[in-house]
């Protein structure tokens, strides 16, 4: 990787003061599981790396009046094992526990999970977010087995965030802080489908730091179901996160969000609508799965994802209410 100067600030203002106002010259280091790989591939060539792990206020999980506050530095292992999260926000614990590598769970942080770059192999080989060569898109007729089935281009990578779908389903927001102030952005608005190479796939600005995640009070049943090819060290092929507000056994409102099917976590609004007023049974769960993948536009090699996403929705719903298929 390219040589860089390194800073280890102890306070947020110090860290923010070290960030450039454009992407490129500076990078924020937390768990490092993605950033170091990006730097080794020369996809990121920062002149300065700002380690934020010394900033104490970015750590910790706290119950607040409004719900749950998850500091950006909380590791995926902490999320997977935290009793409050397991009991009240099961979909988040499912998503974090779904990462098969204990090492990645120990290192990877909540903030990093949301800010990691796409895993698209064209992007990782230097063809950009939109994966083009000589102005021509490479994905639609290329090796697109793991690419998007929703979104319609021109970006075809899939959001790799594990927590994203669950956070959107739960109605969470993220706090983005710059030297000038802070803003709360709904998780659903944090992820962006880039239309050009200059746009980031997240709403974070270069001189901002994602400091915490705010998840509103539970009173929901939730679950995340991931379909994976292997037991170890791999990304899911399709994911569904669901969050249900219930009145007894009846769903009053539901959110269904798919993962690894679009450049952003993909909210399946039709599936949520379909579930309102119903009880979760194998039949309604299956119908919701079917509704969730309406309008999918598979590429040449990834039609299989439509079926997997459909099944993931069904299983996540049944898991959320602990019903048997």
């Amino acid at each position, binding site marked *: 990787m390219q040589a860089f*100067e390194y800073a280890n600030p102890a306070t947020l203002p110090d860290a923010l003061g070290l960030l450039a106002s454009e992407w490129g010259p500076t990078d924020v280091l937390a768990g490092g*599981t993605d950033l170091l790989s990006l730097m080794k591939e020369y996809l990121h060539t920062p002149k300065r790396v700002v380690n934020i792990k010394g900033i104490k206020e970015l750590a910790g999980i706290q119950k607040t009046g409004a719900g749950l506050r998850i500091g950006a530095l909380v590791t995926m292992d902490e999320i997977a094992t935290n009793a409050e999260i397991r009991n009240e926000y099961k979909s988040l614990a499912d998503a974090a526990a779904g990462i098969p590598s204990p090492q990645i769970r120990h290192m990877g942080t909540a903030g990093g999970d949301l800010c990691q770059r796409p895993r698209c192999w064209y992007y990782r080989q230097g063809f950009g977010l939109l994966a083009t060569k000589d102005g021509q898109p490479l994905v639609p007729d290329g090796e697109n087995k793991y690419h998007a089935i929703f979104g319609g281009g021109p970006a075809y990578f899939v959001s790799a965030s594990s927590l994203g779908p669950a956070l959107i389903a739960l109605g969470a927001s993220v706090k983005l802080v710059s030297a000038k102030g802070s803003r709360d952005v709904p998780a659903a608005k944090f992820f962006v489908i880039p239309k050009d190479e200059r746009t980031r796939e997240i709403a974070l600005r270069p001189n901002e730091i994602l400091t915490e995640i705010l998840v509103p009070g539970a009173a929901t049943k939730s679950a995340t179901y991931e379909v994976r090819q292997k037991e170890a060290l791999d990304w899911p092929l399709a994911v569904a996160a669901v969050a249900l507000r219930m009145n007894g056994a009846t769903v009053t409102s539901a959110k269904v969000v798919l993962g690894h099917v679009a450049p952003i976590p993909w909210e399946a609004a039709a599936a949520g609508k379909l579930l309102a007023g119903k009880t979760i049974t194998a039949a309604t769960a299956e119908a919701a799965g079917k509704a969730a993948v309406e309008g999918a536009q598979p590429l040449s090699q990834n039609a299989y994802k439509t079926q997997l996403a459909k099944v993931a929705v069904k299983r996540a719903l049944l898991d959320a209410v602990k019903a048997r298929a």
Partner: protein
Amino acid sequence: MNSRKDPKLPVRPSGGVSRRGFVSGLGIGGGALGTGLLEKEAVAAPAPANLIGPGPAAITLTINGKPVNLKVEPRVTLLDALRNYIGMTGAKNVCDRGVCGACTVIMAGKTVYSCAVLAIDAQGKNIETIEGLAAGNSLHPISAAFVANDGQQCGYCTSGFVMAAKGFLDEHPNPTMDDVKHGLGGNLCRCGTYMGVRKAVIEAAANMKGAKNG
């Protein structure tokens, strides 16, 4: 994966010594490699927000309980620091992208990929490596169980697997086979020795029961 190497590796073992010669040389002399390590210079912790590098900076790592002083550029990973600066080649450099597990060490009690940690960022935490496991000539119970259960073939993933198993058993002293499968989900073996590895971890857990693990 892109196999492009850095244009200039900061430090190589001196004089084009072969890897094997390099490793065996360690056993005899050790001092030649350790010249930088023996310096008794006190290394001050970096002041907050102070910029360090891009040139070499003095850092102190705590490896298997002992402080080690060295000078590295901020871009040097913990894995490269261990192998190329300190001469501890137990942690292997295989994928160098945090996906294979061959470089696994235990940092502050948790298994991590040392290729995905900057050496400068590993200061102040105890780093357990495979070199710290054996007590003199007697193997650690986990290593012994790997030998007894054919937990390795080519051996390249083995030290990473042993450290992953150590980290796992430290937290799960009574695992089921299913726990072991999931607990070692961060390590790959291209020879396919998983069954031997898993049996070894179950056996090691049994052998270590009642004994102090470590």
